[in-house]
């Protein structure tokens, strides 16, 4: 969002001539460059969004066969929320737990690749990205095999008594959270890596020279300096993870369904467009609220 907002004014270098001295063509150029992207966004984001907003206010008694009328039925929203608040809560809970797990794995991983990997850096980066070469769906199906009741993982966990003799992983909340963690991990690791890679090693030396223990150096220098990547990474992880429905669909049962599954079925199975649209908007505003709340707390000017 910041890139878009700054693009036209991005000429603030001291070397550039004052704006008054520029010709009209030069002043228009940034906007001309924006045009294709803006047109694309308008046609395929703004227009459908308005359409979706309208659909969320259709008369709920309509159907595909009888047709819908726009009756400004604001009541669609409380109705939808009342019916599906558990799935809403579950979406944020699962995505939140998955985010914590991904942070615990992803931060050390990104740090190691950026600062310690040396000549293995590129290879390790490829390893992080490599799963993306296969489809999201196929990878999640593979997890189905890994977590299956007859799989080696469940067998191992039963042997060490972390799981009861009848315990299982597949079709439990654990499976869904693990799937989310795995599928969105690269989105967290890559921006974090980019931030940590720029971290000047000499600043860490300076901190230790100034009486900061390794832990304090991390807390006072490494962490604040990796904040932009951390924020970008958590958002790129959390937003799609919250709206995801594949993991719950393939690795869980209806008891693990998230809001994405409900929207999916509203549009494609139950053909209840007003409700699907209303749920979509509720999800969008909930995510926006969480993101803005988070950015205000994290308080970095670079992202907002």
């Amino acid at each position, binding site marked *: 969002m910041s890139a878009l907002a700054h693009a036209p004014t991005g000429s603030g270098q001291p070397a550039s001539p004052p704006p008054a001295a520029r010709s009209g063509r030069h002043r228009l150029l940034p906007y001309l460059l924006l045009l294709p992207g803006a047109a694309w966004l308008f046609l395929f984001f703004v227009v459908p969004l308005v359409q979706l907003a309208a659909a969320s206010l259709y008369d709920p008694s309509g159907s595909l066969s009888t047709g819908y009328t726009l009756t400004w039925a604001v009541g669609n929203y409380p109705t939808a929320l009342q019916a599906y608040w558990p799935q809403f809560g579950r979406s944020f809970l699962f995505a939140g737990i998955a985010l914590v797990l991904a942070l615990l794995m992803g931060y050390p991983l990104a740090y190691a690749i950026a600062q310690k990997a040396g000549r293995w850096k590129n290879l390790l980066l490829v390893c992080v990205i490599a799963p993306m070469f296969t489809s999201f769906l196929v990878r999640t199906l593979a997890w189905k095999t890994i977590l299956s009741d007859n799989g080696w993982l469940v067998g191992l966990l039963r042997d060490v008594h972390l799981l009861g003799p009848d315990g299982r992983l597949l079709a439990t909340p654990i499976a869904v959270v693990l799937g989310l963690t795995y599928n969105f991990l690269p989105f967290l690791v890559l921006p974090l890596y980019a931030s940590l890679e720029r971290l*000047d090693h*000499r*600043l860490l*030396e*300076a*901190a*230790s*020279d*100034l*009486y*900061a*223990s390794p832990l*304090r150096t991390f807390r*006072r*220098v490494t962490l*604040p*300096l990796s*904040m932009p990547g951390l924020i970008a990474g958590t958002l790129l992880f959390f937003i799609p993870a919250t709206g995801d429905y594949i993991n719950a669909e393939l690795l869980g049962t209806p008891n693990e369904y998230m809001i994405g599954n409900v929207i999916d079925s509203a549009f494609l199975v139950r053909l209840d467009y007003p409700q699907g649209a209303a749920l979509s908007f509720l999800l969008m505003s909930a995510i926006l609220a969480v993101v803005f709340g988070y950015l205000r707390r994290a308080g970095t000017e670079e992202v907002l």
Partner: protein
Amino acid sequence: MARDTPAGDLRLANLTKTFGAFTAVDSLNLTIPQGSFFALLGASGCGKTTTLRMVAGLERPTSGQVLLGDRDIARLRPHKRPVNTVFQSYALFPHLDIFENVAFGPRRRGIRAVDEQVRQMLSLVQLDGYGRRRPAQLSGGQQQRVALARALINQPQVLLLDEPLGALDLKLRRQMQIELKRIQTEVGITFVHVTHDQEEAMTMADTVAVMNAGRIEQLGPPAEIYEFPATAFVANFLGQSNLIAGDVFGRSGSDLLVTAHGARFSVPAGRSRTDHGPVFVGVRPEKLHLADTAVQVPAGRQHLEGTVTDASYVGVSTQYLLRTGWGSELSVFVANSGAQQRFAVGDRAVAYWDPRHAFLLGRRADEEDRTIPVLDEPIGASS
């Protein structure tokens, strides 16, 4: 932790650091008296920065000791050492403002009320009122002073300076040299200053150690090293020298007699590093004077004849190159005091000097004259 314990001399004992097969620092022995301004001078790659980093704790010695008073700190982690560093790149924390940068050390040591101390430090380095700015908003010279304040506020027993003025332009560098010297005198902390700039070392330090290939070639007050260098390396690293290859053939009273390229010279035995075998007769360019003919050379001086091959007017002096009969070129600096005659390229001239200004160094038998500065080594006042 710095103030309470009495500081002591900083001693390096057999300090060695090897990287694989490369020996960066070769069993270094060095005592740096408490409260002195000490300069480690050397070309890049001579081991001076590695030495500094071992004192700071940023590099682990292969063997040897780093003693502060009687305490060996060689194996302490950097944050446990009463030593602070001003880094070459300054390494200011970009996410903190100037105030927080300076307060970083005291805060990590659990001091809460830092405001007054930070204010004092910023005023010591003449940056009052800059506390709320970010490092990126400051000029190079100002950043350098923040780095200094950030280190000094901790009142370390030893302050390490790693080429602290390297990134500044010449004028600012001069100013900061004087400033650093003033601050050192004011706070009385031991300063260990690493630099490749011989002028910087001589301007500021009480004691200079010239390092080469992991070893110290000579150590002493700047004037002493300059006037009577111990090795050919020092003679040409600290300033510039004309070194004429010759051999000792005898002694006359308190003088050693040398023959070089068919000419005979004498050097006082007290200014000789050896008394036999192959030697270099060394004379600094500014100790050489020029005359038209040998007749004009005052009594008691020694002289060489040659042809002027280059004359560079540099304001305070004119720098001549004089080609001798055997093909070497002597460097001669003549002060532009108005009294001296000017020479043009192609003129015949006689260079003469007082034997008490010459010095005698040992030479390997295969070494030739060294009269023109080697290009990759920093030279005299021109740097």
